[in-house]
């Protein structure tokens, strides 16, 4: 499945500045693996040994994957996956 992934600004150093990238994947897990293949280092920013890092949220469309099937959430052709990281700052 051709999936569009929206890359937040803090991670664009790993995607050569691209704010969206196209990868293949039948599930969110596949997409993360595809992202790593195309943009090494990205997976480590999203995942740890327990799964998706606590300060990162992955969305399929407008749905948080924690309310779907997590990393096993199946994807349809043309769907969009977004990465929403926690940030703190502004003083």
């Amino acid at each position, binding site marked *: 499945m051709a999936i569009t992934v929206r890359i937040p600004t803090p991670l664009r150093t790993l995607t050569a500045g691209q704010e969206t990238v196209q990868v293949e994947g039948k599930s969110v897990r596949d997409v993360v693996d595809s992202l790593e293949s195309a943009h090494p280092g990205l997976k480590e920013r999203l995942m740890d040994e327990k799964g998706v890092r606590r300060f990162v949220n992955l969305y399929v469309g407008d749905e948080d994957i924690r309310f779907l099937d997590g990393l096993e959430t199946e994807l349809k052709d043309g769907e969009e996956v977004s990465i929403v990281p926690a940030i703190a*700052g502004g003083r």
Partner: protein
Amino acid sequence: MLTPGSTAKTDISTKRALIVGLGGLGCPAAMALARAGIGQLHICDDDQVAESNLHRQVLYDQDDVGRDKLDAAKPHLLALGAHEVILHRSRLLPENAQDLVRGHDIVIEGADNFATKFLAADACYLEHVPLVHGAAIRFIGTALLIKSDGAPCYRCLFEDLLSGAAAPSCDSAGVMGPVVGVVGALLADLALDALRGDWSRSGQIFNFDGKSLQLRAVPLRPRPSCSLCGTATQRPIRQISRALYVAP
């Protein structure tokens, strides 16, 4: 302040707001609420104005360098239209958080650290006070309005504290002055929604990208296992303790 579809102003002269932190986000948010004619504007901070602040903390100027932020800000906010400005010379701390937030019609937090963000979330939830969370780092910012019933909340999205290395703050990563200006104004905009009882933009995290100038809303859903507002959590947070705000 205009209401949609009309030229009539909404009177907020009887409303109370607390702004946690009078830095890059707090300054424009405070100015916007003052100009809108807020009744009582409570501000809490314990910092002094530094020269490095001036490019983004727009309430202060060169003459204020070295002065207490609250003392420097108060006359400006009164001149802009706040009816009263009440100073709280402290950071938001576990020992004072609930007392500080209690009774306000809205709280805005633009804290630069996750401990304060989670503390504000917990205190406002326990005191049934609506809250606007804001953050900005490098070229990006976020804004999130939480209703007084507290769900979905900040912990629904980001669960718990992170270790220091896991997520950079603007101390290490920097922040662009105009970005905090835009995000600070957005925080005030969401706060004004709350003050007039408009919750249509609550429960969505607004992500502003200062490079592409895009603003995108990502909806939140209450998470049943959320330790703060969850309906199915084993050990809900029902009182504030210092241990909750120490990173693992």
